[in-house]
């Protein structure tokens, strides 16, 4: 039917090319990469869970050390803070000095992580739910964070924590705390909010860093300029 070279070429095309080229050492390199990505994902989870444990006890200095030097932080509707020093300033100015005060409870529980490490092994994304249990009531921030591996150490490079809902202990049927704004409390941000949105009873979808794990397609929220859905999706 076809020439011999063509048939050989066709047969070779059926064999995964990496296998042809790979020596045992190269295959072990690939294995090392795959194991390292699993270890990386675990470590990125540990970093974010530790962030939660530090918030619980108002350990702002320890928390700021989880960030890279040029990291950014954006929480609620407060705008963007640039650099590790501003992360610390934000926390200590907004929430008081290090150390939780007697008679307060500010549990910042970190649940439901979805971590993806980039193929380069140097960057990672993680979506994580925070569930807040505090004197003031309940809170539901969401995180879509980025991480960077510097000198073999994973750090938070970009923290985005918009709020879904905050409510008093009476519960969300009776009470909804509005979103924060850049001027809600000191200190002022370095940059305006990346998106303006409203919290419960309104709604907003924080873009997903990952595609639908079954269809493989990325769901892109059709956000109106205010960051709120023009209609129920």
């Amino acid at each position: 039917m076809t020439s011999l070279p063509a048939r050989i070429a066709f047969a070779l095309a059926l064999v995964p090319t990496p296998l042809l080229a790979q020596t045992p050492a190269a295959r072990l390199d690939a294995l090392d990469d795959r194991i390292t990505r699993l270890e990386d994902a675990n470590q990125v989870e540990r970093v974010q869970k530790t962030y939660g444990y530090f918030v619980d006890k108002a350990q702002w200095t320890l928390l700021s050390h989880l960030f890279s030097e040029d990291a950014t932080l954006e929480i609620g509707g407060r705008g963007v803070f640039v650099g590790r020093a501003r992360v610390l300033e934000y926390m200590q100015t907004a929430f008081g000095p290090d150390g939780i005060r007697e008679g307060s409870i500010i549990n910042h529980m970190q649940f439901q992580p979805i971590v993806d490490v980039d193929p380069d092994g140097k960057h990672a994304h993680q979506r994580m739910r925070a569930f807040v249990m505090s004197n003031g009531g309940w809170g539901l921030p969401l995180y879509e964070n980025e991480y960077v591996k510097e000198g073999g150490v994973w750090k938070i490079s970009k923290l985005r924590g918009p709020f879904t809902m905050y409510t008093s202990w009476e519960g969300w049927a009776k009470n909804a705390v509005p979103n924060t704004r850049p001027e809600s409390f000191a200190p002022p941000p370095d940059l305006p909010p990346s998106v303006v949105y409203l919290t419960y009873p309104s709604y907003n979808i924080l873009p997903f860093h990952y595609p639908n794990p079954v269809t493989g397609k990325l769901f892109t929220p059709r956000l109106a300029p205010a960051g709120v859905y023009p209609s129920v999706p």
Partner: protein
Amino acid sequence: MTRLALLLLAAAIASPAPAQTNAALEKRVAAYRDRVERLKDQDAIENLQAAYGYYFDKSLWGEVSALFAADGSFEYGQRGIYVGPRRIRQALLLFGAEGPQRGVLNTHMQLQSVIHVAPDGRSAKARWRGMVQLSRPNQNGQWGEGTYENAYVKQDGVWKIASLHFYVTGFTDYDAGWAKSAIPMEGPSALLPPDRPPSEIYRSYPGVYIPPFDYPHPVTGKPIAPPRPADSILKDRK
């Protein structure tokens, strides 16, 4: 003769270099096998502690106590330390009768794990978040929360709990909430005294005790040792 000579010659030429290469490859494979084993250990420990929670939810004290090593210890809040599965099973009766009961919730959620397996794969430590929902017949429900700092040991290929320590952050009435209700911890039982007193003395909410961290700061690598001011009750008021 000629054939043998050729074989020997071929062996002399061929073997030394591959032998070295193979040794190097074997070493790498062994190192990677260890790393994969540590990942599997972490999974096993995560499942072990999750299983503890699911059994606790239903007051299955026989199953809970069976998760502990022979010299494993159980410490919950200020109740003191119970050692060994038999004593732990007895102590768990302080949380209600064995088996699920009508009107009883013993929900102990096991969340936010930070697990570190020792390099030799024989022991591990983990910090966990425990959310608690309690219900007793004819009483109002309670929310609770605390931190676990646990140790694990691998014996005959099986991970077991070597020590479980649940530091209670606080308990509150379901309706009232933290602003209005702080339910104190139970002390050591007079009926079933613990084998050892509490390892650390502290007060739950409104106290703000910081359970020690078993692992170093994930970025700086230094011990996580925040200042832990004394409870205001202990402050000298001259």
